[in-house]
């Protein structure tokens, strides 16, 4: 049974329909990448899974249980945690405080100390900056903090919305290396990206989302090799 399953999802804002019947699945331990150009609906997909949006129709199942319609904090309690687009850090809080909020849910709170150790090992640059105000960090450091914050919630599935946005290629590489390590430690990853090369090359499987519908599916490397990717991606 897949860990996360989306079935026939229709979602959007007020009466603007963005997703037109998406179905995808993520098995435990996988890295699944969803790529697509802007406006394809990637963020809407993640927001719906996280409970910030209620779907018009369709289901989101986690571990066999429905989670669509749950308020966001309950989705986090279940173990589905998102690193939102644009980081969305608590800019006036320190790095340490951001991490504290990240581990707000009871289960995470109990393991806060261990999580912190693990994270500082993963992102050593944060260790030196713990008392720094989040907004003073560089772009790359902010992305690391946002990812670390989500990890503090001890997710079973970590979803990231365009983590490479605005980052220099070097930082992107480092980030993806960290994601790889996280995955090896047992965290399932759903990665939503516009920048396809690194995202697809590290993915076990990938989906291409275009104008609210899934148009391609396959393993990461296979998609990269497929000439149809370009056409599908650009909507040609």
């Amino acid at each position, binding site marked *: 049974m897949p860990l996360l399953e989306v079935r026939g999802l229709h979602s959007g804002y007020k009466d*603007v329909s963005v997703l037109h019947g998406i179905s995808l699945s993520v098995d435990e331990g996988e890295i699944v990448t969803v790529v697509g150009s802007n406006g394809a609906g990637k963020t809407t997909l993640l927001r719906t899974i996280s409970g910030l949006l209620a779907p018009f129709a369709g289901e989101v199942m986690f571990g066999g249980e429905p989670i669509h319609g749950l308020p966001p904090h309950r989705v986090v309690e279940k173990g589905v945690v998102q690193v939102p687009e644009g980081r969305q850090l608590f800019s006036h809080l320190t790095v340490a405080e951001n991490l504290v909020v990240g581990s707000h849910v009871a289960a995470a709170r109990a393991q806060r100390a261990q999580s912190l150790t693990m994270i500082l090992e993963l992102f050593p640059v944060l260790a030196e900056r713990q008392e720094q105000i989040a907004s003073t960090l560089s772009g790359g450091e902010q992305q690391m903090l946002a990812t670390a914050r989500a990890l503090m919630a001890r997710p079973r599935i970590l979803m990231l919305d365009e983590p490479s946005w605005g980052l220099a290629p070097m930082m992107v590489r480092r980030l993806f290396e960290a994601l790889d390590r996280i995955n090896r430690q047992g965290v399932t990853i759903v990665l939503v990206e516009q920048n396809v090369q690194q995202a697809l090359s590290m993915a076990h499987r990938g989906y291409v989302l275009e104008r609210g519908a899934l148009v391609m599916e396959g393993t990461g490397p296979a998609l*990269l090799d497929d000439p149809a990717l370009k056409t599908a991606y650009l909507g040609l």
Partner: protein
Amino acid sequence: MSASPLDRALIVAALSVFAAVPLVVSDIVYLHIFILIFYFAFLASAWSLVALAGQLSLGHSAFLGIGAYTSTLLFMELGVTPWFGMLAGALLATAVGVVVGWPAFRLRGPYFALTTIAFTEILRIYVENTETGPFGLPLRAAMGLLIPLRGEAPAIFQFEGKVPYYYVGLAMMCLAVLVSHSMNRMRIGYYLAAIRGDRDAAESLGINITTYNLIAMAISCFLTALGGTFYAQYFRYVNPTRLLGVDLAIEIALVGLIGGWQTVLGPVIGSILLSPTSEIIRGQLGGTYAGLHLFLYGLVMMLVILFLPKGLHDPLMALLARIEAGLGLTTRGRPAEAPGAPEPAPPAPLSPIRARAATSAPLLEIRGLAKRFGGLVAVNDFDLTVADGEILGLIGPNGAGKTTVFNMAACYFQPDAGQIAFAGKSLIGLRPDQACALGIGRTFQVTKPFPESTVLANVMVGAFCRVRSTREARRVALEALDTVEFAHRRDVLGHELTVAERKRVEVARALATGPRLLLLDEPIAGLNATEKAHLLGLLREVRDRRGLAIILVEHDMKAVMSLCERVALMHRGEKLLEGAPAEVARDPRAIAAYLGEDYAAA
């Protein structure tokens, strides 16, 4: 707002009843209650004109007081009849209102309300504690002014019985309602509806928000001050504690809010419900149950906000409509726009809104444009030229800077460096409404219809950029709607439209302003394949028939390929490529921009 023949008959009937009441009723208690109904309906109507601009004033008692004190002092010191004094007071109140309103309107919601509270309280405290004011005016502090009794003296606005006051009050209420109704049917009404519907969209259609806010404020203050004189002459006692200050201001606002604060008849409905209630409670139970009427006001207010946030007007009108339908009095569909006016003639065959000589000079010239947001460079050294009648696509991945360039061309914010010239005129420092006046029309990525206005009214707001009369605006609007093949749905309300329909209406609305350049921000995002093809076809036709230029921000490459003659690709704030769509799409740099340099290299 429109009135069917049935509505008009009802209003005439109601007026006749009101007019006949004093002939039948002679109990002064009842007459007094009616007078209060008219008085508060008048005040709430005047107050709601500011609400029409989307602002909540909790300080309108200040203008009431200014009116009352001015006419009274003029009478008592200089013997000027209050009929003239009324006008003087109203003019003074208008001047004060505009002066105070001008900085205050920049504030939104609660902050504007707080400012109006501060204003009326300042006035109250001042008058309450000042025996003799400027120019030696005897303000008499908290004691107030007592108007000497002269018996039956119509020339100086004094009557012995209640009946003349009844008719004056009735006339004033009708005046306020009439003003409100007329404003709604004229350009200012459409503009105010646009301002409260969506400020950005309103500006893009050529509306100077400050100007129209102040006009609404001026009219509102003028009328309110007239009410002050009425109060003075009816009660013959003017004092600051009762007339000025936030308590009365809130009461006036409550009448308008409970009745329906952005409607014409709402204030009347509110007054009919609340004034008798408050008077009876105060009269009968005031001694033993002081505060009961305000308690009820507060309770009703809470219930209205929680369950009927727009007030009683709409549910009541809906109920009325059902009763009428049930009695078979009317086949009620949605009322057409002012059925009193004849159905407009079929639109004239399409001609370009502006006759233009063929010109080789570029229409839009952008040079060296740059913009930063904090530390982030959004646009850097960007050049672009657009010729008359050209369709150009602005493409690029997320964060490339397309929308920023777009917004600067539409004057939504100012560039940090560089130049933008439109038909030879610099756009630097201009406001969006000024850009519209020059001939730049735009649509929004996330559509901004005016939700409570009909489609036709939406487009008419655009039309008013070029024409003055409602009639002309209707004609231009229908023409624009025809262009996008949407005239048949003109009576649908903004918030009821689907996404595709909103996109079409926005295009029509921008077209109605008679632009030479149309800026379209992702016009087909969120549409299905059929809808997209349809809209793209319409856009091409529009360009062909009217000869305007179009700049399109789009992500859908297929659309761009089919519609655009030229394409500019942006990446990380700079222009990367320019040329025919097919070439640009094939260019490896474009692939690198969209899918990442690594992909292109691999």
